[in-house]
């Protein structure tokens, strides 16, 4: 069904109003048509806040979410500020996702409020390629502030949501001001002809997307340049994917 002209003109006006105070409307494409076509503008909007959480056990450890964020950050230009409260990130893994150690400045905040303050400070500065922060609680007010700070400077903000308890993760359903909301869950790795673990695969869920629709994808994890890939079996079409692959729970 073709959208009515009234609706499309209204959409254009809304977009115009929303982008009034924004300096840039640049986007960072994933380089995968399957994902980019679902995002308005054809990629992650740079001057905006994006939320990422892990699925399953990733709610607590945020391992896949951190790699996903590192892959995105690796494809930006400039230094990255990475704010944490628990310093358990292993930098060699970020380097393997394309984020060179020289590009990352770590901020070890003592508690959540000062972490959010550092996050906002980094977003306001404008000279960074991106700011990543590992936060547990992100109430509407805080995410609104961060979104405005990101809009003002055109810096990419990535909030890795990471909780200390499994049941606290229900909070992820709460509304927020972030532009997109993602969930990254682990899937069994690409099968190899020999024993061993192949390239990691993720179930990537786009849970919420402003001016867009939610979707989910099955992707191969970041390569050394931080780029995701579509599994080879899927690239040939959905029919080829149906056989020989187990579905993951969670």
């Amino acid at each position, binding site marked *: 069904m073709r959208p009515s002209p009234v609706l499309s003109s209204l959409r254009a006006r809304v977009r115009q109003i929303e982008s009034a105070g924004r300096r840039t409307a640049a986007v960072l494409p994933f380089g995968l048509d399957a994902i980019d076509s679902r995002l308005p503008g054809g990629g992650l909007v740079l001057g905006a806040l994006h939320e990422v959480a892990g699925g399953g056990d990733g709610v607590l450890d945020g*391992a896949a979410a*951190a790699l996903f964020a590192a892959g995105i950050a690796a494809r930006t230009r400039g230094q990255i500020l990475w704010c944490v409260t628990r310093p*358990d990130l292993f930098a060699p893994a970020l*380097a*393997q996702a394309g984020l060179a*150690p*020289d590009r990352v*400045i*770590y901020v070890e905040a003592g508690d959540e409020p000062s972490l959010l303050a550092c996050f906002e400070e980094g977003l306001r500065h404008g000279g960074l390629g991106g700011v990543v922060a590992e936060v547990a609680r992100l109430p509407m007010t805080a995410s609104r502030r961060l979104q405005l700070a990101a809009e003002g400077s055109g810096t990419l903000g990535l909030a890795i949501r990471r909780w200390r308890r499994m049941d606290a993760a229900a909070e992820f359903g709460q509304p927020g001001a972030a532009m997109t909301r993602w969930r990254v869950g682990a899937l069994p790795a690409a099968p190899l002809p020999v024993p061993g673990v192949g390239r990691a*695969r993720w179930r990537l869920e786009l849970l919420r997307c402003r001016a867009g629709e939610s979707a989910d994808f099955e992707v191969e994890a970041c390569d050394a340049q931080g780029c995701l890939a579509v599994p080879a079996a899927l690239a040939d079409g959905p029919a080829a994917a149906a056989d020989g692959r187990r579905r993951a729970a969670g």
Partner: protein
Amino acid sequence: MGAAAPPVDAPLVLIGRAGRRRVVLAVDAAAARAGLRPGLPAAMAQALVPGVAVHPADPAADAEALDRLALWALQRYAPLAAADPPDGLIIDMSGAAHLRGGEGAALADMIGRLAACRIAARAALADSRGAAHALARYGGRPALVVAPGQSAAALLALPVAALRLPEEMVEGLRGLGFAHIGELAASPRAPLVLRFGPDLGRRLDQALGRRDEPIDPVRPPDGIEVRRAFAEPITAAEALARQTGILVADLCARLAAAGLGARRLDLLFHRVDNRIQSIRIGTVRPVRDARRLTRLLCDRLETIDPDFGIEIMSLSVALAEPLGPRQMVSALAAEPEADLSGLIDRLANRIGAARLYRLAPVASDVPERSLRRIAPLAPPTGETWPGHWPRPSRLLARPEPIATVALLPDHPPARFTWRGVSRRVARADGPERIFGEWWRRDAELCAVRDYFRIEDEAGERFWIYRAGDGEDAATGSQRWFLHGIFG
């Protein structure tokens, strides 16, 4: 002293005059071990220890050296520092400890640096000047940080001599049966004052924090300082912020004239009640941008309690470095590199400079030793870690033991239980053998870790290792640990 210097390990005493006698005034550790102590007649000391090196005491030079040390403390640690003769420094750490990574870290750093200059020092941090003085000398620990509000309780068990009283008064108190401060604090004040005079009560109140004892801080002799005195004391936060702005503008004009940039700035607030409150800010590079410095200072204004009002504000440069014009862009086409030093300064003044870092590779195969922290704005190292083997994105601070079902010697486990959840291993990669670094510790002489990357049925990937090679008990305990989580 040059060639006339005595051998390092010979006992050394300093002698001076007490009345008409020549007595020992100070002894070093070797002399103290030989049985010498201050107060001994000089001739007796020389008779008791034949090889003793004797030097005349020079109190004026001592005082001068102590002042120099106070200046050092001022530049390094806190805006309010003063010599506390004959043998101490008094430093007001409030509002400055965050720059050194907290109070405990600041004290440890101080003692370490003094030790490197061969000065044995003890330090204590407490609520009042008197308490810190007593705890540093009688607290029994080289670096003692007393929690806020606990100083009075910590004092009660110390001997009466800790109160900075004249020798004869301490003797008199001891004669009356007062051994500890607690006993003194619990007894009625009037009879004691009648006998010993008002000094006793004053010192007791100062130690217990009931009476103020201002510090008369040292100022750098040729430092750049601007001050404003107000006809009416000011209290409002906006007024303080405005005056800060004016002071910074004045200071920057003077810095510009001198071709300097500030690395450390102290803003002192002289209150109506004769107390001084302070803010110290640090920057990673010399700065004389008035807006930036004002913002850094105003960020910390909330820590100031103006109480009945502030009469004088003074802003001084504790540490300055040359700051000349600098070329920003070398080629026309090059995009200017973003200047992050302003952001780093703001974050460092908020959470502490030690919590802001970059990680650089270290050539070590042991995962927890493969990185080191460097300053956030250090020049790029251009190095990275070897990427032959995948590394987990989360590394547990301490490897956690797991229960496994595994074939020895070189198979990954078939099942394992971690944090109460049992998982079946669907696929595995490994082993990646990492040897202990025998040059570090004897215990690592033949230690081995065999790392496996494993994936359970749900697709969660983990990094586990076996301590030992699976055969030889000397290489490790052969127990399994989970060390990291892949994404």
